[in-house]
């Protein structure tokens, strides 16, 4: 489980980096089935020279009717490193997914999820929850115990990452694949289109990066050396 944790961490960092490189070649996000430089964007990120480059020839309408969809050719040589970016993204995704399956199975069968992650009934009171929130806000971080017992918010966060964000990343990733959506068109319905899936993929990745940052801060504040040893070699 602990080696799976670190393989997933490494794959995630490569995925974040290559994901950023891929986003740089088209830093526009949309809602719906399709979106491109000739259609309105939900928002646009100023993260490469492709941001609002405006390098398009005069648009030509496809149909005679007003408001017809148009076409145009590009006059601008865009930033595009997707040749290795995409391949490295998918290679790391393979590492993450295969290791993730091993992690999930061992989490279930060793009882790690049930014993350490699943909140106990007595923890699930409103007072307990608010007490933990206030403790976190005051930055009263309990010092390292070298592994579980986890706090209530900690359990919620880990479960959200494992059961919500990671599956969401994988499914929205699948929704961008033309071969996979040909077989499973329900994915396009579920996420309201391939471009919506791309936008959800982006926000979920931001959430995961934030999780990683907070996770690292908590590890440092609760005793870096002891925690890293526990995360790597156990108690």
């Amino acid at each position, binding site marked *: 489980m602990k080696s799976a944790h670190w393989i997933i961490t490494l794959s995630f960092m490569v995925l974040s980096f290559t994901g950023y490189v891929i986003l740089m070649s088209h830093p526009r996000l949309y809602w719906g089935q399709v979106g491109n430089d000739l259609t309105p964007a939900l928002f646009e990120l100023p993260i490469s020279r492709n941001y609002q480059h405006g390098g398009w020839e005069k648009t030509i309408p496809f149909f005679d009717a007003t408001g017809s969809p148009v076409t145009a050719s590009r006059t601008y040589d865009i930033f595009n490193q997707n*040749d290795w970016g995409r391949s490295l993204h998918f290679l790391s995704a393979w590492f993450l997914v295969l290791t993730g399956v091993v992690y999930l199975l061992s989490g279930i069968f*060793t009882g790690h999820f049930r014993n350490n992650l699943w909140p106990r009934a007595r923890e699930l009171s409103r007072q307990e929850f608010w007490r933990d929130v206030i403790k976190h806000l005051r930055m009263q971080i309990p010092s390292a115990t070298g592994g579980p017992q986890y706090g209530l918010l900690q359990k919620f966060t880990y479960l959200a990452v494992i059961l919500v964000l990671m599956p969401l990343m994988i499914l929205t990733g699948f929704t961008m694949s033309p071969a996979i959506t040909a077989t499973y068109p329900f994915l396009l319905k579920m996420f309201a289109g391939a471009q919506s899936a*791309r936008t959800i993929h982006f926000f979920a990745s931001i959430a995961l990066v934030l999780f990683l940052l907070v996770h690292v801060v908590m590890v440092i504040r609760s005793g870096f050396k002891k925690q890293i040893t526990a995360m790597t070699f156990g108690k």
Partner: protein
Amino acid sequence: MKKNQLISRRTAIITGLTSLGGLVLPGCSKKLPPTYGNILRMGDALTYVAQRTLLPGQSLAMEYQHSDISSFPATGTTNPADNTKPYFSKAYGNLHTGDFSNWHLSVEGRVAKPGLYSLADLQRFPSRTQITRHTCEEGWSAIGEWTGVPLALVLNSAGILPSARYVNFYAYDGAMTSIDMLDAFHPQTMLAYGMNGRSLPVPHGAPVRLRVETQIGYKSVKYLQRIVVTDEFVDTGDTGWAWYTGI
């Protein structure tokens, strides 16, 4: 470590590595499209094997309504007749001047009846019209209506031989790519000569382009010149871009 654990850490690691090997090995024993001993291409090969193993090959990509047709950027080569561009083709320039009346598509290689097909010849085949989504590797996408002849009809009419495994496409702008038989005989894989109800415009690959709806946009090469059917994978070197782009 407790004795009653169902899976120890060691068994988990060993089982994990073994199953990973099980997935990777079939990719190594059979001769697969490009790997170049490059780790990135290994990932691509794994995706190819996994998608071919896990996905039924002939499911149709989603088709849309006429009202869903969207604006559609023309990228990559947008006019091989432009002599200021590095991809300029004199031959294409001449065909363009003649309104493509002298254009012929050569179908050759592992077929019983190699031959030349004019635009009119291709239009004599039963046609297919589909409104599909084009997904570009850059991240954008667009919906367009394509009219053309399913590639399967042309390959069957040319008498494709049973040993054939790949269909290679050569274009006037110097582009070359290939697809396997599953994609070649996919009902939506077509040689398109019409777009959005008109003849295919030059920026989108006139007179005829390939449409492979189960792969990323760059597989659908424009400005077709020649189709070569082969038994073996034709390796034209590592362009850096994944050969299989179902993802």
